[in-house]
C-alpha cells in the first residue's frame, strides 16, 4: 500500500513539476513546441534526478484561466543492475490541465485534467534495497526540508485518467515481482494536505504477482469502482460501497483499511459482500503449491457477507463476523471413493479477539450427497481458537458399502447395508482427542436396513433394526449406569463366528444401560433388559431354541472387590429346546432368576461362579444316552444358592417310574470344592418305581478310577457293577406305592434310603409283596469295583415259603430242605458278603444267620413223605404235614450249620441238626426223641442228594427239650441258637 502511494505521488509530482516549469516558461517565453521542448527538457534536469528525455511539449490553452500541456514520449532513465530495463518511466502521452487562476488567486491547485496514456513505469529494488527511483525520494525528502513558497496544500483532481498504464515493480530484497498491465482507470477527487478523497474507477487491469518464485497471480483481471478517502500520512484508505473484482470474483466493500507503521499492523474496519463466487474461479486463483493434491475437482457457488474489524498483524487477528453460503457444490477427490454432489451449506463465522472464547462457527445447515448416501449437519462450533466445542446435529442416510474403502484392510472389517438416522454430538476437541467419552454428549437414533458386518471371523446382520443410544444415559435406573444407554430393536438379528456359533434372534428388543466399560480397574456396571420373540443358537454340537425369552441381565462388581463380577439374570421363556449331541431337553416353560457372584480365589472355573436364585420348569423332557428312556418333568420348582438347593416341587417320570422329589440338598459348593459331603434330605414319593433304572441314573457319581481295570462309569454306566456315589450323603424318605426290581414287585414301600459316601442303605424299609409283609434293612457299599459289600437284614413275618424261595432263590442254596415244605412261616435272615465285579459271592466272606418258624407245614414231595412214613411206620391217618418247625442256622463261608431243632410230625418228635455244604454235600443227624417205638433212635444222613447214606446212630439230642437233664453240649447249642435269634429279631421294628 505504501509503495502504491509512492508511485502515485511520484507521478503526480512529476506532473506538477512539468506543469509549473511549462507554465513559467509560458508566461516568460511564449514559444512553440519546437522551442518549448528543449527549454522544458533543460529545466527538467534541475528537478528530475535521473536522465530524462521529452519527445515534445505542447501548450494547450483551454478556457482561461485553465492552462495545460501535452507531453509526449516522456522518458526517465534509471539504470539499475538486475532491473528488467533501464527505463524508469516512459509516458507515451501525458496531458495535464490546471486552473491557473485558482492557483494565482488562492494558491489552490486544481488539476482539471491529467491523462496518462500508453505509459510504462518500471520500479525496481535490488537485493540490497537500492531502488531505481530512490533519488526521487531523496528529492522529496530534501525538498520538504527546504523552505518553499509552493506548498501542495490543496489539489483538486477533477479528471485523472490512466490509459494503458503498465507498471512493473520488482523487489529482489523482498523477493516479489508485481506487474499491472493494461491498466485503465479514472480518478477524481481532492487532495487536501495528505488527504485524498475521490473516486476510483479502474475499468481494467491485469495483475500479476510472484513471490519467492511462486506465481500467485498471473494476468488476473482487476476491476475497481469505488469512492475512496485516503489519508496518506496514516496510510488509511476508506471505501464507501466500493466494488472490486478479481477475475470476475466481485466484492462490495464498505469501510477502511489503515496500515499502522508503528505497530506494523493493518487496522481494518470493513464490511463486505461477496457476489456469488464460482468455486472453480477461486480454485483457479489458488497457486498450485497451495492446492492439496492433484485429483481435486470442486465446483459450486460461494457467497458471503461479513465484517472484518480490528488489528491484523503477526499476532493479532481482527474480529470477523462472516456469513458464508455454499450452493450447488460438487467435489471429486481421488482419495474419496465416490463423488460428492449437491453440496449445500450456510454458516456463520464469528471471531472477537477480545473474547476468543466467544468465537464460533454456526452451521445453519450443510448437506452433501454421494451416489448412494446423503448426510447433513447443523449446529455450532464454539471456542474456535481454543478448545473447540462442537454442538452438532447430523442426519445421515448412508449406504455402508460405499464407505468400506475407508476401513484399513488390516482391520478385516467389512460392512454393508444402509443406516439412516440422526446423531447429536456435544463435545470438545480435547475430549475427542483424549477419548473422554464420559465427558462427551452423544445421542442418536438410527435405523439399519439390510445391515451386515463381518469382522474377522465374527459376523452380524440385521434385516431391519433400530438403535437408539445416548452418552450419557439421560435417565439411568441406577446411579452407576449413567455412562450410556443403547436401545436395540430388530426384526431379525443374526450373529455368528465362523463355524463355532450362530445365534438368530427374531423380534429382539434390548435396552442396555452401562457404566464406562473402558475402565479396566473395575468391572463395569451393565443393566440389560431383553424381550426376544424367538432365539435360535447353535455352537458345536449344541443347539438351543427358546420362544419368547423375557427378562433382564445385570453385571456389576462385588462390593469391596472391584474386579469380581456379580451377575443377575432373570429369564422367563416358553418352549425351550436344547440339543447337545445325543442329549436333549425340551420344556414348555422355563423361569430362572439368579444372582451369580464370581470368586476369583477358586482355581476351578466351576467354583468361581456362585449362583443364588430360583428356577421353575414345566412340562419338560430330558433325553440322554445314559437314560434308557426320556425323563419327563411335569414340574420342577426350586431355590438355590451356592450351598443349598431347595426343591419345593418336582414331578418326574422315566419310563415306568414316576416320582416326586422334594427336599433340600446341602453343601453343594463345598462338595464341588472337596470340603464336604453333599448332603440331601428328600421326600421321595412315587406311584411306581423301577429300582434298576433309578440305580442306573446314579451309578458311579463321584467315582475316581482307583482300580487299574476300572472303566469310566460316567461314560458307560451300564458296564460293571453299580457303584454307589461317593462324596454325597443323600437321604430319601421313600413312599412308594409299587416298586419293581427286575421281575420282583413290592408295594406300599415306606422307609429311608440313604446314599452316604459310597454306602447305600435301605433303612428299615417296610413293604408288601405277594408273598409276605416284609421289613428290609440293606447295606450296599462299594469300596472298590471288585470288592462290593452287601448286607441284608430281612424279616418276613408271615411268608409263603414257596414264594420265599421264588423271591430269594439263594435261600434254597442255604437251606435246601425248605424246598420240601409249603405253608406260611416266619423268616428272619441276616447275611453279609462281599461280591466281585460280576456280583459273584466271595464265599470266604459270606456270613449269615437265619431263624425260621413254621406251623402246619406241608411236605411238598409225596415220595419223600411216603418213604419217611413207611420207614417210621406212620399211622395211616397221618398227613404229609409238619406240625411245627423252629430252627436257626448259620452260614459261614461254604458251611451252613443247622442248629438242633425240634420237628413234630404225626406221633414223632425228632431233633434235627447238621451241616450243609455249598458243594451240596451234607451231614445231618436226626434224633427221634418221641415215637411209638420202645427205643430212641438216631439217624445219621450223609452224602449228597444223589448219594444219600443213612446210618442208625444213638440219639445225640435225646433230652434236648428236657432242661433238667440237658447235657452241656445241648445247653451250648441252645445258647448259640438264642444268641443267633435274638441278634436277628432285635432289628424288627414292629
Amino acid at each position, binding site marked *: 500500500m505504501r509503495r502504491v502511494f509512492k508511485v502515485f505521488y511520484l507521478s503526480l509530482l512529476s506532473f506538477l513539476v512539468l506543469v509549473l516549469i511549462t507554465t513559467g516558461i509560458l508566461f516568460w517565453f511564449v514559444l512553440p513546441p519546437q522551442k518549448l521542448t528543449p527549454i522544458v527538457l533543460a529545466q527538467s534536469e534541475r528537478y528530475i534526478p535521473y536522465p530524462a528525455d521529452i519527445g515534445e511539449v505542447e501548450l494547450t490553452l483551454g478556457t482561461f484561466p485553465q492552462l495545460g500541456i501535452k507531453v509526449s514520449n516522456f522518458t526517465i532513465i534509471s539504470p539499475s543492475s538486475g532491473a528488467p530495463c533501464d527505463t524508469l518511466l516512459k509516458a507515451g502521452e501525458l496531458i495535464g490541465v490546471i486552473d491557473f487562476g485558482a492557483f494565482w488567486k488562492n494558491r489552490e491547485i486544481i488539476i482539471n485534467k491529467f491523462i496518462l496514456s500508453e505509459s510504462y513505469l518500471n520500479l525496481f529494488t535490488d537485493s540490497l534495497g537500492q531502488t531505481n527511483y530512490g533519488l526521487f525520494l531523496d528529492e522529496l525528502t530534501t525538498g520538504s526540508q527546504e523552505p518553499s513558497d509552493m506548498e501542495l496544500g490543496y489539489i483538486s483532481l477533477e479528471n485523472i485518467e490512466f490509459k494503458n498504464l503498465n507498471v512493473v515493480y520488482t523487489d529482489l530484497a523482498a523477493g516479489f515481482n508485481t506487474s499491472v498491465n493494461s491498466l485503465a482507470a479514472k480518478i477524481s477527487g481532492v487532495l487536501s494536505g495528505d488527504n485524498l478523497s475521490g473516486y476510483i474507477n479502474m475499468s481494467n487491469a491485469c495483475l500479476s504477482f510472484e513471490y519467492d518464485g511462486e506465481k500467485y497471480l498471473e494476468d488476473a483481471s482487476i476491476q475497481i469502482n469505488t469512492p475512496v478517502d485516503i489519508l496518506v500520512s496514516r496510510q488509511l484508505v476508506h471505501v464507501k460501497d466500493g466494488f472490486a473484482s478479481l477475475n470476475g470474483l466481485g466484492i462490495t466493500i464498505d469501510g477502511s483499511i489503515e496500515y499502522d507503521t508503528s505497530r506494523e499492523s493493518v487496522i481494518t474496519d470493513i464490511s463486505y459482500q461477496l457476489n456469488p463466487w464460482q468455486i472453480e474461479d477461486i480454485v483457479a486463483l489458488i497457486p498450485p503449491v497451495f492446492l492439496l493434491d492433484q485429483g481435486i475437482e470442486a465446483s459450486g457457488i460461494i457467497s458471503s457477507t461479513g465484517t472484518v474489524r480490528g488489528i491484523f498483524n503477526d499476532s493479532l487477528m481482527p474480529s470477523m463476523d462472516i456469513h458464508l453460503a455454499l450452493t450447488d457444490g460438487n467435489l471429486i477427490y481421488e482419495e474419496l471413493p465416490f463423488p460428492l454432489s449437491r453440496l449445500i451449506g450456510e454458516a456463520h463465522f464469528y471471531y472477537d479477539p477480545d473474547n476468543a472464547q466467544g468465537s464460533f462457527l454456526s452451521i445453519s445447515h450443510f448437506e452433501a450427497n454421494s451416489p448412494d448416501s446423503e448426510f447433513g449437519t447443523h449446529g455450532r462450533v464454539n471456542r474456535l481458537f481454543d478448545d473447540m466445542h462442537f454442538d452438532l446435529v447430523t442426519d445421515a442416510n448412508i449406504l455402508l458399502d460405499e464407505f468400506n474403502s475407508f476401513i484399513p484392510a488390516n482391520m478385516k472389517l467389512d460392512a454393508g447395508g444402509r443406516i439412516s438416522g440422526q446423531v447429536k454430538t456435544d463435545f470438545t476437541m480435547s475430549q475427542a482427542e483424549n477419548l473422554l467419552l464420559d465427558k462427551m454428549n452423544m445421542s442418536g437414533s438410527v435405523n439399519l436396513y439390510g445391515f451386515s458386518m463381518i469382522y474377522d471371523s465374527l459376523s452380524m446382520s440385521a434385516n431391519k433394526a433400530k438403535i437408539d443410544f445416548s452418552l450419557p444415559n439421560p435417565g439411568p435406573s441406577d446411579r452407576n449406569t449413567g455412562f450410556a444407554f443403547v436401545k436395540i430393536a430388530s426384526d431379525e438379528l443374526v450373529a455368528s463366528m465362523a463355524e463355532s456359533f450362530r445365534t438368530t434372534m427374531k423380534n429382539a428388543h434390548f435396552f442396555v444401560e452401562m457404566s464406562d466399560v473402558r475402565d479396566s480397574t473395575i468391572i463395569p456396571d451393565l443393566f440389560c433388559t431383553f424381550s426376544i420373540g424367538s432365539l435360535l443358537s447353535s455352537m458345536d454340537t449344541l443347539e438351543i431354541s427358546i420362544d419368547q425369552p423375557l427378562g433382564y441381565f445385570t453385571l456389576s462388581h462385588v462390593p469391596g472387590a472391584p474386579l469380581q463380577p456379580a451377575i443377575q439374570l432373570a429369564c422367563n421363556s416358553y418352549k425351550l429346546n436344547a440339543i447337545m449331541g445325543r442329549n436333549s431337553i425340551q420344556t414348555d416353560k422355563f423361569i430362572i432368576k439368579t444372582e451369580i457372584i464370581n470368586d476369583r480365589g477358586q482355581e476351578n472355573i466351576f467354583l468361581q461362579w456362585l449362583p443364588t436364585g430360583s428356577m421353575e420348569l414345566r412340562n419338560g423332557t430330558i433325553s440322554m444316552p445314559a437314560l434308557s428312556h426320556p425323563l419327563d418333568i411335569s414340574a420342577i420348582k426350586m431355590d438355590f444358592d451356592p450351598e443349598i438347593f431347595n426343591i419345593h416341587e418336582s414331578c418326574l417320570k422315566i419310563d415306568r417310574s414316576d416320582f416326586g422329589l422334594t427336599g433340600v440338598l446341602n453343601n453343594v459348593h463345598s462338595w464341588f470344592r472337596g470340603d464336604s459331603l453333599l448332603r440331601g434330605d428328600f421326600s421321595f414319593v412315587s406311584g411306581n418305581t423301577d429300582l434298576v433304572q433309578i440305580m442306573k441314573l446314579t451309578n458311579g457319581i463321584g467315582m475316581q478310577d482307583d482300580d487299574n481295570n476300572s472303566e469310566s462309569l460316567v461314560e458307560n454306566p451300564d458296564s460293571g457293577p453299580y457303584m454307589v456315589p461317593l462324596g454325597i450323603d443323600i437321604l430319601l424318605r421313600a413312599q412308594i406305592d409299587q416298586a419293581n426290581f427286575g421281575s420282583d414287585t413290592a408295594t406300599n414301600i415306606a422307609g429311608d434310603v440313604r446314599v452316604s459316601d459310597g454306602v447305600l442303605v435301605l433303612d428299615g424299609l417296610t413293604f408288601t409283596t405277594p408273598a409276605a409283609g416284609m421289613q428290609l434293612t440293606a447295606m450296599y457299599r462299594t*469300596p472298590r469295583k471288585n470288592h462290593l459289600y452287601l448286607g441284608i437284614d430281612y424279616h418276613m413275618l408271615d411268608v409263603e415259603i414257596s414264594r420265599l424261595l421264588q423271591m430269594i432263590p439263594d435261600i434254597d442254596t442255604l437251606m435246601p430242605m425248605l424246598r420240601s415244605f409249603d405253608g406260611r412261616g416266619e423268616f428272619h435272615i*441276616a447275611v453279609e458278603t462281599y461280591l466281585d465285579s460280576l456280583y459273584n459271592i466271595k464265599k470266604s*466272606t459270606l*456270613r449269615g444267620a437265619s431263624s425260621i418258624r413254621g406251623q402246619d407245614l406241608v411236605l411238598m414231595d409225596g415220595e419223600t413223605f411216603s418213604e419217611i412214613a413207611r420207614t417210621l411206620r406212620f399211622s395211616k391217618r397221618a398227613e404229609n404235614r409238619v406240625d411245627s418247625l423252629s430252627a436257626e442256622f448259620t452260614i*459261614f463261608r461254604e458251611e451252613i450249620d443247622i442248629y438242633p431243632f425240634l420237628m413234630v410230625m404225626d406221633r414223632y418228635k425228632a431233633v434235627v441238626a447238621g451241616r450243609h455244604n455249598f458243594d451240596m454235600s451234607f*451231614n445231618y443227624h436226626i434224633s427221634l426223641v418221641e415215637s411209638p417205638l420202645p427205643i430212641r433212635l438216631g439217624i445219621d444222613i450223609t452224602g449228597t442228594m444223589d448219594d444219600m447214606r443213612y446210618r442208625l446212630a444213638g440219639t445225640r439230642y435225646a433230652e434236648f427239650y428236657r432242661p433238667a437233664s440237658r447235657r452241656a453240649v445241648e445247653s451250648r447249642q441252645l445258647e*448259640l441258637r438264642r444268641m*443267633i435269634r435274638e441278634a436277628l429279631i*432285635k*432289628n424288627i421294628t414292629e
Partner: protein
Amino acid sequence: MKKLLIPLITGIVVALVLVSCEKEEDFDESLLVGKWKSGQLFYRYFINGTGYTWDEGDDVREDEAQNFTWTLVRSELTHIHVLEIGGTVPKVYTVTELTLTRLIYKDEFGKSHSFTRVIL
C-alpha cells in the same frame, strides 16, 4: 436178634468207655495271638479277644478283613463273627494242637483246620 444185640451192646459199651476216657486238654490262649495262615486264608488274633480274617484267594486284602471275637476255654475255641448288618455267627471248634508255629482245630463235624503262624 441176639446176634445183633450182642455186638450192639458191645459197641455201645466200647463207645461209652472211649468217650469217657477222652481227656480234654488245656491250651494257652496267648499262643493263639498273632497271624495264622492256611493257604491264602488268614486269621489274626489279638490279645483282647478280637480278630479278623481274610482270604486273599477271593481278592480280599488284610485291610478289608472281617472281624470276629474269640475265646479259648481249655480246648474249645469259639469264634463269634459279628455281622455289620446285625446278627452273629458263632463257630465252635476244638483245638487239637496249639504251638508257637502250628494251630490245628476241628469242628463237631470232624472237619479239621490247620494253620501255621506267619512270622514276619
